[in-house]
């Protein structure tokens, strides 16, 4: 579904964030993209979503394709229309707009069936339904994370990229988030890429594991072989 061949990504023309990596996502898969801070996970996800040029970044070599068509130089709005949604780090949403307006704004790329998807998001996250008319700026960190995942679902994605969804959340909230990740994968058939530093739960759900460190893929393995010990060795090397 998604394929990166020899992809290098750079910021400001000089800072090499990702160096000639190969990365594959099969349709229906749930790929865990693991790696420490600064490994290049966010950069890779932004490149897929087309956001890199807006942060002075660029794809300098290699092929990045989604369903056989190149993603290089495509505007993020067009990429969203092709069915890729990215939940960015920092829980990016529209703080002055109400929760329902946030969700509706995210469905403007795929207006067909938006009403049904809104009902589904409210079923996934009942707390958002309760607070639907409140400004998103008033939400707590965990509620914001639910909102941004809900927003991603509103665009009816076939490939959903989550960038460190558990960052800064309480353990209970992390459980809730991964419950939803599991449901989206199982019930909606969404293909997922989840970037995290370490979450044991993610390794249980994943169908494939990539480990990224200092811009290189240092490990590609089935999840059964990605035990904590191996990961720690990779992280520390």
């Amino acid at each position, binding site marked *: 579904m998604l394929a990166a061949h020899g992809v290098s990504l750079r910021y400001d023309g000089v800072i090499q964030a990702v160096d000639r990596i190969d990365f594959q996502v099969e349709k229906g898969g749930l790929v865990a993209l693991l790696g420490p801070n600064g490994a290049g996970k966010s950069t890779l996800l932004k490149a897929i979503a087309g*956001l890199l040029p807006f942060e002075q970044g660029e794809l300098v070599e290699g092929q990045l394709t989604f369903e056989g068509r190149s993603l290089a130089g495509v505007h*993020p*709005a067009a990429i*969203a229309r092709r069915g890729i949604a*990215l939940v960015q780090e920092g829980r990016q949403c*529209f703080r002055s707009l109400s929760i329902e*307006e946030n969700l509706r704004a995210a469905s403007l*790329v795929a*207006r067909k069936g938006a009403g049904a998807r809104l009902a589904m998001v409210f079923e996934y996250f009942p707390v958002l339904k309760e607070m639907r008319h409140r400004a998103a700026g008033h939400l707590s960190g965990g509620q914001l994370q639910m909102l941004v995942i809900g927003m991603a679902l509103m*665009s009816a994605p076939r490939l959903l990229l989550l960038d460190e969804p558990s960052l800064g959340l309480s353990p209970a909230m992390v459980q809730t988030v991964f419950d939803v990740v599991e449901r989206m994968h199982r019930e909606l058939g969404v293909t997922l890429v989840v970037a995290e530093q370490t979450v044991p739960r993610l390794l249980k759900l994943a169908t494939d594991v990539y480990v990224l460190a200092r811009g290189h893929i240092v490990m590609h393995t089935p999840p059964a072989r990605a035990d904590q010990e191996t990961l720690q060795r990779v992280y520390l090397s």
Partner: protein
Amino acid sequence: MLLLQIATAGIATGSVYALIAIGIVLIYKCSGVVNFGQGGYAMLGAYAAYALARAGLSPPLAAAGAVLVLGVVGALTELLVLRRMLRAPVVAVMMVTLGLLILFRAVCLAVWGPDQIAFPQIFPQGAVQIAGIFITYNYVAAALLSLVLSLAFLAFYRFTPMGLMQRAAADNSRAALAVGIHVSNQVSVAWAVSSALAGLGGVLLATLNGLSLTLSNIGLVAFPVIVLGGLTSLMGSLVAGLLLGMLEAFTDGLLTPALESFLRAHTSIYSVGALQQVVPYMLVGGMLLVRPQGIFGQRGTERV
């Protein structure tokens, strides 16, 4: 009776101020740029209506045509000038808008000359009689058209998918891009709408005061309106526009005559000059001291 007469004039000019100010706020909200050239677009709108009427269109059609032309001019400004400056500091962009104002004035001066021109009669001549006073159709039309259009625009911004895209792009451009909203196109739309509103404001103002290059000064009056209303509030612009229009009218119609007759009786001062041009700035000065965020603006807060 006099009070009613003054109030009508105040509402008419005030709602035109609101039209112009709403356009500035719209652009500021989604791009952070304050358009110092807004008065230039108003002036251009009036001259465009004049030119179209001269070319043979009926005056109301010429006015509508001018509004469309200005919408195109606004979109082209964004596409040809501002989009090339995406990475430039916001202050540089604002200086460019000031440059555009100078350019527009120079073009109008070269084409139509410096003299006041009789503006075509867009609305029927004559007046309505309300409670014993006569109000010309020009004033009635200016007030109604700009009020109705301002409110229609606010409703559009609040309740339609296109308005939602505008608000989303204005709130957080990173998030808007990620959910597939083409932010740059939204900025183009904002420029088109803003310039069209300014063009209409210019046409209405020309029907009230005649057509000349001084029409572009309306851009300067718009700034007290925006500061008063809160830089980011469209509703604030509407309310503050009406407020300032009334204030100017009452200063001109009541305060200045009263002050002058008092001064003439007791001192050798004969005139206090165009006091109504000073009052808005005095009000803004006071406002900035008491409530810097404006009537409807929100105090800037940052999470630390």
